[in-house]
């Protein structure tokens, strides 16, 4: 199908993008990679009157290390993350997750910020940003504010972003040298959205894990952390009994919801399967 007619503007500065967004109100839409937005326009699920293309805005670009944080600009593409040495070194979880996002032609355009702002509970980046305890840097009419990933994902496709705000970048604490991670998703076909997935990081000392973050995606209305399971595992030598206990606790604490093809019970089952595999992998 073809999109309904709209106007198109391409500001060069963040301040211009912000004022265009305010001016456009409900009828204006930001476009970054367009890999979600243009599909919805082609299907006529949405009919904005103007697209504000932010891809020329320099402030939103680039991956860098600033102090003890890895800064990923909102416009950084999935491919740039996949290919980045800085990411591989300082946030290896993201490097492992990237190839699971759609296919290369889509990863070449789709952006980190677009994925976070869209807030799809089945998407990889929201879950990873939660596991890595990322902070979102947001600009709006009142200037800059920062929101933790924990407070950013509010509900299904709903984030803490206000309609007149732009996600500028994300700051991620650099991975400590004893960080271990696990990323896995159960999907019908490579590149499809997961039926259930796990993005996990921890710090490892012998067989003991600490600072555990087990984040599940595609099982609930937002990515979710298994906090009770994390607390259970933190600081104790990991063995098969502890793994079995953690699996039960995680299944219990997460409020899984069904999708079109999979029941909530099936999702709960998969949460346990993923955590068991993940913990065994981290122990190995």
């Amino acid at each position, binding site marked *: *199908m*073809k*999109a*309904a*007619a*709209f*106007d*198109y503007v391409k500001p060069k500065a963040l301040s211009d993008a912000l004022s265009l967004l305010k001016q456009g109100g409900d009828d204006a839409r930001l476009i970054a990679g*367009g*890999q979600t937005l*243009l*599909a919805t*326009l*082609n*299907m006529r699920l949405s009919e904005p*009157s103007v*697209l504000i*293309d932010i*891809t020329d805005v320099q402030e939103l670009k680039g991956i860098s290390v600033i102090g003890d944080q890895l800064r990923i600009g909102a416009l950084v593409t999935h*491919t740039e993350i996949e290919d980045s040495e800085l990411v591989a070194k300082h946030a290896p979880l993201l490097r492992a997750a990237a*190839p699971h996002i*759609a*296919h*290369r*032609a*889509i990863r*070449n*355009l789709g952006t980190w910020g677009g994925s976070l702002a869209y807030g799809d509970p089945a998407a990889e980046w929201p879950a990873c940003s939660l596991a890595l305890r990322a902070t979102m840097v947001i600009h709006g009419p009142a200037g800059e504010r920062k929101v933790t990933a924990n407070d950013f994902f509010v509900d299904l496709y709903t984030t803490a972003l206000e309609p007149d705000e732009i996600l500028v970048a994300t700051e991620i604490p650099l991975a400590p040298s004893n960080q271990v991670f696990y990323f896995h998703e159960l999907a019908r*076909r*490579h*590149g499809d959205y997961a039926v259930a997935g796990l993005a996990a990081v921890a710090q490892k000392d012998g067989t003991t894990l600490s600072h555990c973050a087990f984040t599940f995606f595609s099982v609930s209305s937002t990515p979710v952390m298994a906090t009770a399971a994390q607390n259970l595992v933190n600081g104790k030598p990991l063995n098969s009994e502890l793994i079995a206990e953690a699996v039960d606790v995680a299944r219990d604490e997460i409020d899984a919801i069904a999708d079109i093809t999979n029941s909530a019970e099936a999702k709960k089952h998969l949460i346990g399967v993923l955590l068991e595999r993940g913990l065994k992998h981290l122990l190995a």
Partner: protein
Amino acid sequence: MSLKKKISMTVNGTLVNAEVEPRRHLVDFLREDLHLKGPHLGCEQGACGACTVKVDGQIIRGCLYLAVQADGCVVETVEGLTKSGVLADLQESFMRHNAMQCGFCSSGMLLAAAELVEKQPKASREEVREWISGNYCRCTGYHSIVDAIVDVLNARAKGQKIKPVTAHA
């Protein structure tokens, strides 16, 4: 609102100036305005890959990219890449393996395969399958398509070239 925008881009080596409606996606522009029928349209939702073209050296979904976004860019389609010879060994390998039936998916498959061969010269058969799974072949010719790509990877790894076809009298 049907206000047209002036754009200019290099398509297959030629500078093109045009006026387009912002809603016109790149493949409609290439097919309808420039009469380049190589890139095909299947789903227009990003799912099938028939519309794959290159913009500034990377493959993209031509149905999820607007012609206005390509203003100032370098666009390449299967037509241009065939002329320049970039796809020659893949095309030869596709022919040898009969890796096409109706050919609807072939231009997208070739462009996706070319980026794989360039970016992941050591890809395993499994990785080739994963990579190419983003391009639908409705004639289900995947097996021979994967064979054809793996042959090119092997030939290149040995420094050999699969020679382009020459017409026999």
